[in-house]
């Protein structure tokens, strides 16, 4: 059934008012931006999310989490998207948790994540484009462990993370899934330089330089040369989550825009009376519904361990990126001049959409995935 069950509805009913209040733009995004916060999010909110049981949403109950699935994580992410609430929920509680699950590293990091005191980041991209199979950062055997050298970028929350999951190449060559190994690198590892950058949407992502970073063999997440397994789990979860967050961004921007159409007067009329705007608004509404359904479908397939999940994940991420872009562009345009000001919130939606589109692969990356997975 592609409808939420009672428990999932209850979760939505709890999270929606919480994000609208505690996670509101004025209280979080705008506040942290304007106070120059180095993390781009509030640790207080991260702790509150933990108290609600959300940071451990995907962590098994045996590790102190809620043991829920992607559908539930997406419920939270859509509300985060609607309110542009900055937090490490997507990177840490969703993507990193999925990478760490069922590995020897889980016990070490899950309690802190569930308690809202640990932040984890993923270091995948090495160039300006997302290309996980192209991972080239070298990890060479050194005694009982490994030595890592190379660079990473677009490491979201990399400057705030206690641990960074770094994809490196231990065998094969760039372009191959085999031969990638995922390492858990502590933030204070010797030889690791973290260059924290502010992105367009005021969130933070780091460029990393690893210069002979020495790691013990137990830093390996999963199997040596078999890092694609935890990495693809993280990517599936992160992309599906990002699709829901983008759907939330689209819905939040659209709600603001539809309200404006109901209030703003020109030519002695409410501008929402003009058919040219009504039709564009109605088109946008339908697209957001499609985006939401695609994200839900991807989440359900992931939770069910279905073979077709990866295709639907790519569909959901590409669709959500398109729809969110449409929503923020229509939003700014229909708001007119006020939409160009920093004072109005609609512009924040446009900035967030741009970052989330690129995260874990942009619209065109995922359209190409759809083609490849469909056999053409």
């Amino acid at each position, binding site marked *: 059934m592609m409808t939420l069950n009672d428990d999932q509805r209850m979760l939505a009913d709890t999270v929606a008012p919480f994000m609208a209040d505690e996670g509101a733009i004025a209280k979080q995004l705008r506040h942290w931006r304007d106070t120059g916060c180095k993390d781009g999010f509030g640790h207080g909110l991260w702790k509150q999310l933990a108290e609600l049981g959300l940071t451990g949403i995907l962590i098994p109950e045996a590790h102190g989490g809620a043991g829920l699935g992607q559908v539930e994580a997406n419920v939270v992410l859509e509300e985060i998207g609607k309110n542009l609430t900055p937090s490490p929920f997507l990177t840490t509680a969703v993507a990193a948790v999925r990478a760490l699950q069922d590995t020897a590293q889980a016990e070490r990091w899950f309690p802190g994540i569930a308690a809202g005191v640990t932040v984890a980041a993923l270091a995948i991209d090495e160039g300006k484009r997302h290309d996980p199979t192209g991972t080239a950062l070298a990890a060479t055997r050194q005694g009982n462990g490994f030595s890592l050298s190379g660079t990473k970028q677009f490491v979201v929350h990399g400057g705030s993370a206690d641990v960074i999951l770094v994809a490196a190449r231990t065998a094969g060559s760039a372009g191959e899934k085999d031969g990638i190994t995922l390492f858990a690198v502590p933030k204070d590892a010797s030889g690791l330089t973290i260059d924290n950058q502010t992105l367009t949407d005021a969130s933070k992502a780091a460029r990393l330089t690893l210069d002979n970073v020495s790691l013990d063999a137990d830093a390996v997440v999963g199997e040596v040369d078999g890092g694609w397994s935890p990495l693809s789990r993280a990517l599936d979860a992160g992309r599906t989550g990002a699709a829901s967050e983008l759907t939330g961004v689209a819905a939040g921007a659209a709600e603001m825009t539809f309200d404006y159409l109901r209030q703003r007067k020109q030519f002695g009329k409410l501008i929402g009376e003009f058919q040219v705007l009504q039709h564009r608004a109605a088109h946008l*509404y339908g*697209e957001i519904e499609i985006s939401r*359904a695609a994200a839900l479908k991807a989440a359900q397939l992931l939770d069910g361990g279905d073979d077709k999940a990866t295709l*639907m994940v790519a569909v959901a991420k590409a669709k959500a990126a398109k729809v969110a872009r449409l929503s923020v562009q229509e939003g700014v345009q229909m708001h007119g001049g006020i939409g160009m000001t920093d004072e109005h919130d609609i512009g924040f939606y446009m900035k967030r959409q741009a970052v989330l589109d690129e995260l874990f692969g942009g619209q065109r990356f995922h359209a190409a995935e759809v*083609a490849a997975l*469909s056999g053409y």
Partner: protein
Amino acid sequence: MSDPDAFRADTRAWLETNCPPEMRTPMKGEKDVCWGGRNFEFQSEAQKKWLGAMAARGWTVPDWPSAYGGGGLSAAETKILKEEMAAIGARSPLTSFGISMLGPALLKYGTEEQKKHFLTQIARGEIRWCQGYSEPGAGSDLAGLQTKCEDKGDHWLVNGQKVWTSYADQCDWIFCLVRTSTESKHGGISFLLFDMASPGVSTKPILLTSGYSPFCETFFDDVKVPKDQVVGEVNKGWDVAKYLLGHEREMISGMGLGGSGDALGKAVGGVEDALLRAEIADFDVDSLAFAAMSERFIDQLKAGDAHPAFPSVMKYAGTELNKRRYELMMAAGGSNALEWESEASRGGKLAREWLRTKANSIEGGTSEIQLGIVAKHILRLPGA
């Protein structure tokens, strides 16, 4: 439902025994569709046998009550039946506007006698129905219809003209919107059923750009109709009409799914042109995402939490998608696809279908009408 696994096993066994092998192959075209009705000529014994077997079990309309010729299945059982049919590639035993449009309206608004009589005939494929909605002066502004229906005491007398009546020249009966009062636009419409063999009914096919004539002009000249053939109350036919339109829009939106469920890029074979390939991939994203919304919508309907105006969202998205699909198929076909009569082009099959899709966003209410409905009933925009 008693036991889903047992029901699935029973269904599978029954289909294995009763679905003829010829009915497990993909339909090659319109001629393989079983429409039923008094004038229908079965293409094969297998087609006839398959309809007979399914109708006897009520499975032409699995979720209708068994008292009206249906299978009396729950939503979950209906889903299992459809899955099992899909698994063996079973063709739909019966396609009709009686099933997809009139049936749901009768179930909601019909009298007990009407339901027993008409629904049972529909379920067995005995009567083929057409839809008398649009008129030359009432297209998008459907409620402006003028076909006159006078109360003559012991019967109704109908005079006027309908247009875009699908397959009127092959149908047995018509469900028709008529004007029973001129005092109110929406409040003067009634929903009438009558036999197309009645004296005074005539039809004239309309030749379309595709070279086919799926639609007719339909004329009523002093047609007498029995008094008990109004559905719902007199002058309250607009409610029935709108309810039926919701079902029509659902049905039409199904074309957004494109049949096979395959990605278009795979269906058209190798696409060497990089730009076209990119456009097709972009289309497949939209198409597969739309399929997810379709699946969700069906579940929402079953759960009773679909917005009443949501069929408009489905219809708009599905038909615009289908038009795009055919534009891309034509592009992929290149000049081969332009041959109108050749054997290689199977008589211009693709080009004719491509032209036919242009009606998708017109019939059942234009895209613009659907957007207006969404703006008004879902977004509640001012003045919509």
